[in-house]
């Protein structure tokens, strides 16, 4: 359903490093199958969010192609990709002035009927009724806005849903139900699901765990197979310069 072909995302580099540009995504090839749950993990700065944004069209592909349902979508706008069935939950959701959760749901679904909106809330489960007329503004807590972001993405009934760190700011009691919700959506609607996360709950729920390091996929497979790689910190970005505990450059 989604194929990444020799995918690059390159940004101009500052002059100090004596190079013109840097590959944030450095030649990724991967096929995402229909109706499967993928968890993408890897160290901070490894390129997880950049990759997710490339798929949604928020970042522009530098080289290579993104094939979705047999069509090269690399040059399509965010809007065109959304209308083709891709939805995206931002790691740091946008905050508005004068736009409510109800407005976002209506934009996502085209529905403004009260009862149907309540049905959506019920289906999504994690947002209480009192959220509906809350403004999606700076007054919301980090957890509240992430719940709204997730609910809006699910409400759009996407064929491919991408969630960038959906658990940030979410309380411990909601992470379990959130994982179950994504699994339920996948089971009922065959939504191909990609979650960028460090949270073990998502890694355990995934059919395929993908580990990204330095803009490349260094592992894809089940969680069991990923564990040695995750455990021995072989994905540490400071490995090359590490001088051990006496002088830990990463300040860990």
């Amino acid at each position, binding site marked *: 359903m989604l194929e990444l072909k020799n995918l690059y995302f390159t940004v101009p580099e500052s002059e100090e490093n004596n190079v013109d540009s840097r590959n944030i995504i450095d030649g990724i090839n991967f096929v995402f199958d229909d109706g499967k749950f993928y968890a993408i993990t890897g160290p901070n700065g490894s390129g997880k969010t950049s990759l997710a944004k490339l798929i949604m069209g928020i970042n522009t592909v530098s080289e290579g192609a993104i094939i979705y349902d047999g069509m090269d979508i690399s040059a399509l706008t965010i*809007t065109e990709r*959304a209308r083709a069935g891709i*939805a995206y939950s931002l790691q*740091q959701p*946008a905050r508005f002035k*004068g*736009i409510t959760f109800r407005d976002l749901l209506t*934009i996502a679904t085209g529905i403004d009927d009260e009862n149907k909106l309540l049905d959506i809330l019920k289906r999504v489960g994690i947002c209480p009724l009192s959220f509906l007329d809350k403004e999606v503004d700076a007054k919301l807590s980090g957890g509240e806005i992430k719940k709204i972001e997730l609910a809006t993405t699910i409400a759009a009934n996407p064929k491919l849903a991408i969630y960038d760190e959906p658990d940030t700011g979410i309380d411990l009691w909601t992470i379990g139900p959130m994982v179950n919700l994504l699994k339920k959506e996948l089971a009922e609607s065959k939504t191909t699901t990609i979650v960028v996360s460090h949270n073990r709950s998502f890694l355990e729920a995934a059919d395929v765990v993908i580990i990204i390091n330095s803009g490349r996929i260094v592992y894809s497979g089940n969680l069991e197979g990923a564990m040695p790689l995750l455990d021995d910190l072989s994905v540490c970005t400071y490995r090359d310069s590490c001088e051990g505990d006496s002088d830990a450059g990463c300040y860990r």
Partner: protein
Amino acid sequence: MLDAIDKTLLKTVADLEELPKGAYNIRKNGKLLSRHVSANINIETNADETGIIVKIKPGTKNESVHIPVILSQAGLYDVVYNSFIIGDDAEVTIVAGCGIHCGTSDPEGHAGIHEFKVGKKAKVTYIEKHYASGDGKGRRTLNPTTKVFLAEGAHAEMELTQIAGVDEANRVNEAVLGPGSLLLITERVLTDGDQIAVSTNNIVLSGAGSRANMISRSVMKGNSRQIFYATMDAQNKCFGHIECDAIIMDNGTNETMPSLKAGHPDAELTHEASIGKIANDQLTKLMSLGLTYDQAVNRIIQGFLK
């Protein structure tokens, strides 16, 4: 009595399809067009015939007054002095507004000077909309002034909106707050083309325990320009907040000058101000829900000015 242009202007500035129920005073082209008083609300022309005096009886509950002004006569600059005397414990909604239809190249304008005396524990909601339309090239000017005096425990909520089409606006809002009173002002101004809008606000927190919140939302399209001054002058233990946000589109420009003066050690004053283009993450979010770039811009502005 109302022609098609009048009806459109009334609908836009006062949400009126027909003549309203309850008390009203409609002024057209500088003259009284229609007036209706109720048992609790009296409207009379002032002594020098330059405006009206609206008196709300103490204890009046859930009543409203509509006082729209419509202008469609070329070359007219209409100045009106209106007074509102709101009795103790009364609760009332006042809907004002000015619609200008300009069909020629002669200028048209309106200056409404509105003075409110809000009695003890009275609650007033004041809604004012300004709008101009028409194909004429005549300059359309609106220069409203509101002066508000809040007695002990009084509560005033003011929504001041300039929707479209006004070439030049010079607004002045002044308020003096008595003990325990509350003032909420929300001002929304959209300018386009070469329009200019200046808003000057002076809020004096005079009484102990008084509170004021001034919210300003500005959108500048085209080459338009807006200037916003707001001063909270705290003379007692009180709370005041100014929030002014401006969105720049096209080549619009903005100057925002919030000013806080604490003349009492227990005064608490805050302000937040921002000027900038529409945030990228907002556009990205709405586009990822299927809106085009232009639809996303419109939706964000619509919410911002809601």
